[in-house]
């Protein structure tokens, strides 16, 4: 009976907590003209990969819309003092995230996950790839073979890290950057530059917007029971 009461109390408190959570929403924009993306000519020169494309693919460092909407910016939360939020990961129960190798390119190139969350790496290409992770943040380095049509490879990472690199050394133009957080409070800006960090508990936070080329910008916010809007504007000369 005591156990049931305790469980009920926990349930009520959790529900109350969720009901008070709010979303942090916003838009990331880029002003100025970024460097021109480079055609990936080695891909087209490759006898296996080249025929998979009708046009020469380019690098995707600055994915910018007509009105400056800036995609592929990783937005995350730190506490009010600017320290990373730790121990809040729900990665173990979260759905796996897919990282596909298609047309001898990683899709998507910018990805964010939680610690303990599965990353499924697929080879949709008619050729072999090696899946090589290179960590600067203490996560293990993997280098695994993935043949065409072979089973998906699954990885999990325990340590938070920004822009951990997945690469293929067989095709050295292939790479993806995976950011790992110890909480579910992060998002990646879409093609419209918008992002949503959902169900943020009330409190003071530092919102960090990180772009692999342009570094970080921060804003402090106070979250109560209403959605909070935070916009970021990066610039290039």
């Amino acid at each position, binding site marked *: 009976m005591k156990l049931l009461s305790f469980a009920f109390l926990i349930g009520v408190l959790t529900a109350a907590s969720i009901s008070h959570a709010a979303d942090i929403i916003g838009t990331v924009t880029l002003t100025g003209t970024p*460097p*021109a*993306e*480079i055609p*990936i*000519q*080695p891909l087209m020169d*490759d*006898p*296996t*990969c080249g025929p998979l494309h009708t046009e020469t693919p380019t*690098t995707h*460092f600055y994915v910018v819309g007509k009105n400056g909407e800036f995609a592929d910016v990783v937005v995350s939360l730190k506490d009010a003092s600017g320290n990373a939020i730790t121990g809040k990961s729900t990665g173990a129960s979260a759905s796996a995230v897919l990282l596909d190798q298609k047309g001898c390119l990683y899709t998507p190139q910018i990805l964010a996950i939680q610690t303990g969350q599965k990353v499924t790496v697929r080879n949709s290409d008619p*050729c*072999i790839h*090696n899946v*090589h992770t*290179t960590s600067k943040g203490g996560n293990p*380095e993997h*280098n*695994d*073979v993935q043949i065409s049509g072979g089973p998906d490879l699954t990885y999990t990472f325990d340590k938070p890290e920004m822009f951990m*690199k997945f*690469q*293929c*050394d*067989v*095709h*050295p*133009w*292939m*790479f993806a950057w995976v950011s790992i957080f110890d909480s579910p409070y992060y998002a990646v800006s879409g093609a419209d530059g918008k992002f949503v960090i959902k169900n943020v508990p009330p409190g003071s936070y530092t919102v960090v917007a990180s772009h692999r*080329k*342009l*570094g970080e910008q921060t804003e402090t916010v106070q979250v109560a029971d209403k959605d909070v809007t935070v916009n970021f504007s990066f610039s*290039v000369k």
Partner: protein
Amino acid sequence: MNDAKSFSSHARALHWFAVLTAIATFLLLGAGGLVTSHEAGMSVPDWPNSYGYNMFLFPPSKWIGGIFYEHTHRLWASAVGFMTTILAVWLWAKDSRKWMKWLGTTAFLLVVAQGVLGGLRVTLKMDNLGIFHGIIAQIFFVITCAIALFTSGLWAKISLGPKINIPRPLRTLVLATTVLIFVQLILGATMRHQHAGLSINTFPSAYGKVWPDTSPEAIQRYNAERMEITNINPITAFQVVLQMVHRIAAVAILVCVVLCAVLAGRNLGAHDSLAKFAFFWLGLIVAQIVLGAATILTNKAADIATAHVLVGALSLVTGALWCIIAFGRSANVPVASRTAGETFGAFGTLAGNK
């Protein structure tokens, strides 16, 4: 007389095999350079197997992309290892000079260590091992070239021939310059194995300055501006400084080699073989500086960057062989210790027959 002829032809065969090994090593350096230049070092994740196959049975149809560079490097390295083993055994069996036997053994041990190091770099996934792999490759190349020289009729001729006075300052300068070139090669190997591409992508200025800004803001700006195609790492201030030191060392080497050439010409006469060798060395250094600039101006094109590695290796070997030949021709070397019978064994006959 038949014995003498037999010795002579045998010595010649050993010498040409040593030359072949040195040439194969040079080509191996090129193959290794291409692996790093194409960022393909980890494209075959296993070792000593290749994608689960016995290395020698890995089907050529699977040698695609970066695998081609890494796998052919492994195969060529195996061939050089095999040749070095034969060379070491041959020296033990047929060369009467004890130090030559040990030089052959040193080459054998180095090539084994080099193979294991290359394998561990892959299996342990340690980028830094690549630096040592690159440095030992240079040392090994010097040793194979030295063996080729020591087994040659030229060496017998030099050692038994009249001694000349090579001024100590010249010999010291050449030795010091050779050491400087070796240090420069270590810097180059360290730069290449950062896998960060060009840390400074302008030449002759460094981001428009004589000495580039290395503040965190500047480093972020450099990274933001460069649009790399291959999967290279972002650059750091350390890497920018490293390239600047490499540039300064290049100028220092050029000055030293110019001095060496001038001193050699003045002291030995322009027609002396060592003076000519010094002029050749100067030509190599000039070519190397041109290739270094071209490496930057072509955004580290793989073939140019690899040629830069190869000419660097030739520059080191040229300095080292100059020192060895100068040692052999120097009047300061006691003649008593270089009698044909004692020192050159089989090759004494070769020298005697010339």
